């Protein structure tokens, strides 16, 4: 199965790819500092400028360029999302695979620990972790990673349990393959599809959680731009300067939509039975 080609043939996948592609370019430019204006520079003569002229998306209360701030904000949100979901996927998969493979006490301990984490609504667990550590980008990454680790553990453990009993794994063992080889080569190989789907969908949730934390003032700290903070700033000025609300809102929505579309498309490709149902 060629995933990139299949994604391009899938209509929702195509739209998702375009959205995420455009946002990723903006994010990379933002992170490299290649923005139209300095995202932190205040232009006192151009406060609350409507979109147009040299400020394509207008300016905020301090005369800062919204477009530049959005580019850096998206870069920052994507960084947090990829790092946190990357950590969650790695830790979760290792936990899930080892729990399924070794079973017994380790399986019980690992899965009960995950049950405890799953007993909290996502945002609440993230808030609790942020309360323990200092609010900021690194804490957001850690908090979101902890929140989504149990999901990957379950995604990895379920199929691994059934794979373990299948004949080809027995065959590999008979031929003297080591445990580690079987785990990485066979089990992980079969788990790539469900994990990729979960990874993409988790990116959407991670973006939401990150935006929520910064909206509450517990994520990225000002004056650094972030999507959640920009939305929070727009609250008291939305009547006077609706562009402060509309653009960040549109970007968050598009980013989440893009990852959702990609995730759904990947699920269709990985499991054609779900195609008709959920596309």
């Amino acid at each position, binding site marked *: 199965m060629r995933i990139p080609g299949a994604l391009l043939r899938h209509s929702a996948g195509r739209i998702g790819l375009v959205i995420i592609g455009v946002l990723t370019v903006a994010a990379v430019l933002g992170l490299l500092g290649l923005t139209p204006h300095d995202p932190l520079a205040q232009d006192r003569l151009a406060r609350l400028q409507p979109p147009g002229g040299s400020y394509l998306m207008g300016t905020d209360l301090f005369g800062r360029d919204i477009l530049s701030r959005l580019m850096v904000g998206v870069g920052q949100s994507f960084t947090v999302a990829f790092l946190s979901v990357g950590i969650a996927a790695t830790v979760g998969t290792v936990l899930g695979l080892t729990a399924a493979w070794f079973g017994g006490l380790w399986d019980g301990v690992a899965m009960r620990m995950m049950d*405890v984490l799953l*007993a909290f609504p996502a945002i609440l667990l993230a808030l609790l972790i942020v309360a323990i550590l200092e609010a900021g980008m690194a804490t957001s990454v850690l908090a979101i990673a902890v929140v989504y680790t149990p999901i990957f553990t379950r995604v990895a453990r379920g199929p691994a349990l059934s794979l373990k009993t299948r004949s080809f794994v027995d065959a590999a063992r008979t031929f003297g393959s080591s445990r580690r080889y079987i785990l990485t080569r066979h089990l992980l190989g079969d788990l790539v599809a469900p994990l990729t789907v979960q990874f993409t969908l988790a990116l959407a949730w991670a973006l*939401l959680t990150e935006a929520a934390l910064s*909206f*509450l003032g517990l994520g990225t700290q000002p004056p650094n731009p972030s999507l959640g903070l920009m939305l929070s700033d727009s*609250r008291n000025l939305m*009547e006077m300067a*609706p562009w402060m609300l509309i653009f960040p809102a549109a970007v968050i*929505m598009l980013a989440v*939509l893009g990852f959702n579309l990609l995730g759904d498309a990947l699920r269709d490709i990985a499991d054609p039975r779900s195609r008709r149902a959920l596309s």
Partner: protein
Amino acid sequence: MSYFLRRLAVFPLVMLGVSIFVFIAIRLVPGDAITAMLGTEGGMLTPAQREALTVYFGLDQNWAVQYLRWLGGLFRGDLGISVTYGQPVLQIILERFPLTLQLALMSMVIALLIGLPAGVYAATQADRPSDLLVRVFAMIGQSMPNFVVALLAIYILSVGFGVLPTMGRYVPFREDPFGNLAQMILPAIALGTAFAAAVTRISRAAMLDILSEDYVRTARSQGFSQRYVIWRHALPNALIPVLTLSGVEFGYLLGGAVIVEQIFALPGLGRVVLDAILQRDYALVQGVVLFIAFNFMLVNLLVDLAYAALDPRIRYGDRP
């Protein structure tokens, strides 16, 4: 052991794990508890006063003793005293919970009223333009964070209609039902949008699945009308996944809608959690978080049991 019994047996164990997790998490917060409790006033304490407070709150004991004391208190319904409110934590929770419960119920009603008909309709129109339209709307709805919906709703109301949502004092339902509903409808819509989108998608998927089943085709071929087949045969079965999804979402909402409650200045559980964390009111954080986790798990347990009872095809072997 049957699935029911095993599921019931695990519940208290996980709750115990949750209580240990919350207890330790709170104690990992930097700074000593007395200073955190009293804020800047902590600096004015004499060493003797500080010592007395430490003994009073049992902070001179080791963690195990402190935990067992706290746990013992939990069983007596004593969740401790909130420093910021000067009230028992349990009382604060019980005062705020009705608002959160009402908001969660209203959001669920909105989600089901929109999502269920939309999903069923889309399934009967599969692959026609109207189905596509519903799917596009559902996809967009699912990608709208509730705080974005909340802000956009406020913007549309204030600019488009010149009205602002009432955000002053919260009016309880029994005092003024209309005033209360006027205050709660926007937050409920904000929380219900993504929920409705999810219900639409799941009910469409479930209906499509069932409409292609042999027994439905048999019923159609025997001359029963489309409407009869949908209402009598397909819908009851399609409701099972909708029930599961709604239950889990409802459980989430019972934890309080932290951001939406903050945007609309509603004093629900979400607001309490956020304020308690910002104020470092540890007894309150501990109590509310435990309460929310308990509700969340209880709802999930009930949903699982209802699912198992409604759909006997499901065989529960190894836990997924």
